[in-house]
């Protein structure tokens, strides 16, 4: 007996609200170490926001708080609110497994499911969430593979194992897998750091296209990448958000001294 949950009613208009995702007063720790001290950030819809900062500044931990992945870490603690379209993902009485699928995530190293084909990798999240209609699944798989510029490369044989692709292709496959569950927001944790420059370029082109329809938040240690793909940038250091603003302003005219020293390459 399936129980049909009522879909939250949302009014979809072509003019979307200014901020798609708002993280308020996030304090996150694991194993007793506080990694994110009290960070508030607002992410604009259909824009790319980059999170930069030196190693250990808490940007990845913060990212993982946005889709409730942080609580899976050992001894993890978290406070604060994360509002997606106005709804707090932490207190909306929905199980984390529902809240997690509202936001897609791509990880540093490509991690497709090794025993599955290309098709099955993309469709994995759909089958998990009860989608049975084969033609709908086919449409979504094709749509997602097209969005990540993989469709032409793999359409001749979708049943090939996911691992038979190159590193860059595998990462795009993982992005397609994340997009397949129809999230509004896409989180990317240094998605190109394990890839060669050509593959990286493809991914950056893809991000520039995707942002027309998605809200993207990307953690990167590569400052040039941040300037290439992002509209807004947040600079974090030792668990605090030091400065946040338009990318152009952060890199050309930083208002904070630490920011200035970081973007000039004086440390990190």
């Amino acid at each position, binding site marked *: *007996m*399936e*129980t*049909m*949950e009522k*879909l939250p009613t*949302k009014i*979809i208009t072509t003019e*979307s609200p200014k901020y798609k995702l708002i993280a308020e007063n996030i304090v996150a720790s694991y194993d007793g170490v506080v990694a994110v001290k009290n960070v508030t950030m607002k992410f604009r819809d259909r824009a790319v926001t980059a999170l930069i900062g030196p190693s250990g500044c808490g940007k990845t931990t913060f990212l993982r708080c946005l889709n409730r992945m942080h609580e899976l870490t050992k001894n993890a603690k978290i406070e604060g609110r994360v509002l997606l379209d106005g709804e707090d993902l932490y207190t909306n009485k929905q*199980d984390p*497994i*529902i809240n997690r699928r509202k936001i897609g995530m791509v990880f540093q190293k490509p991690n497709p499911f090794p025993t599955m084909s290309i098709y099955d990798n993309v469709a994995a999240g*759909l089958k998990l*969430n*009860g*989608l*049975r*209609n084969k033609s*709908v699944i086919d449409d*979504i798989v094709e*749509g*997602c593979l*097209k*969005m990540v510029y993989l469709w032409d490369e793999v359409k001749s044989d979708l049943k090939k194992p996911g691992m038979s692709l190159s590193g860059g292709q595998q990462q795009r496959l993982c992005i397609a897998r994340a*997009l397949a569950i*129809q999230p*509004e927001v896409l989180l990317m944790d240094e998605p190109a750091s394990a890839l060669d420059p050509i593959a990286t370029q493809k991914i950056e082109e893809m991000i520039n*296209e*995707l942002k*027309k*329809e998605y809200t993207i938040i990307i953690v990167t240690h590569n400052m040039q990448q941040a300037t290439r793909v992002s509209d807004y940038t947040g600079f974090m250091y030792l668990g605090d958000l030091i400065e946040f603003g338009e990318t152009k302003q952060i890199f050309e005219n930083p208002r904070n001294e630490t920011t200035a020293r970081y973007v000039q390459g004086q440390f990190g």
Partner: protein
Amino acid sequence: MITVEQRAEFRKHFRYNVGRRLVIDKIVKGVVFGCVILAIVPLGSILVEVITNGSAALSIEFLTQIPGAVGSADAGGIGPAIQGTIVLIGMSSLIGVPVGVMGGIFLSEYGDNRYGRTVRFFNDVLAEFPTIVIGIFAFVMIVLTLGNFSVWAGTFALSIIMLPIITRTTEESLKLVPITYREAAFALGIKRWAVITKIILSQAKNGMVTGILLAVARIAGETAPLIFTILGSSQFMDGFNGPIDALPLRIWRLSSLPYDNAVAQGWGAALVLILMVLSINIGVRYIVLRKKGRGLKLRMRGGAL
């Protein structure tokens, strides 16, 4: 490009069967926990039964006297069996430990080649041999040759069982010593044999001792190979070329007798044996835990690979 509107459309197809999925998750968790209970209960029962039934039979006489005549009221004791087990363990270690340690050294320090791989493979094969077959082998090789059951035969069989375990644990312990130790020593001009014996071995000491003790615990409990080699006896040992008793063998014999006092003795002997074996196993854990064994995962009979 999948637009916002298309996304909303697609999402309508999700079945949102979350309730059912969460219930299945809970059920699986319950089933899995049930499996754990199924494993704990037998151990608990064994320990309880051995301790309750066995302690009734314990006494100084029990531990030191020879068994009485079968069926008589005075059941005597299991002295010879205890002596036998200790003798057999000691003698087997005299062979098994040196050969096993040297074999482990070979595999770890000289064994990165085809020959080493072959030896390693067959070592693992020997480690998983049915021990009764090893007993038959010792019977044919030693008992038939010498013409009688003897301590030699039992020692031979047990040393074969012990050997691959010690080789494997020694190799693993040595491999855990970082290569930088060897490189630094070689750079100083120290000869290889000295590097191994004086520097590497001392680093690997914990793991090796653990492995040896676990091998000892294992052969202490082996019965099948003894059936074919030592015959068992109601007397204390009389020379290495004669029969001898041992705890596991005596337990087996006692359990098949139709007399209550014999069975009671069997539980007593089982208590002595299990105390011996379990205290080695638990004691070894403390050595490993205390020295924070650098991730040394010991493959024992239970966790053998």
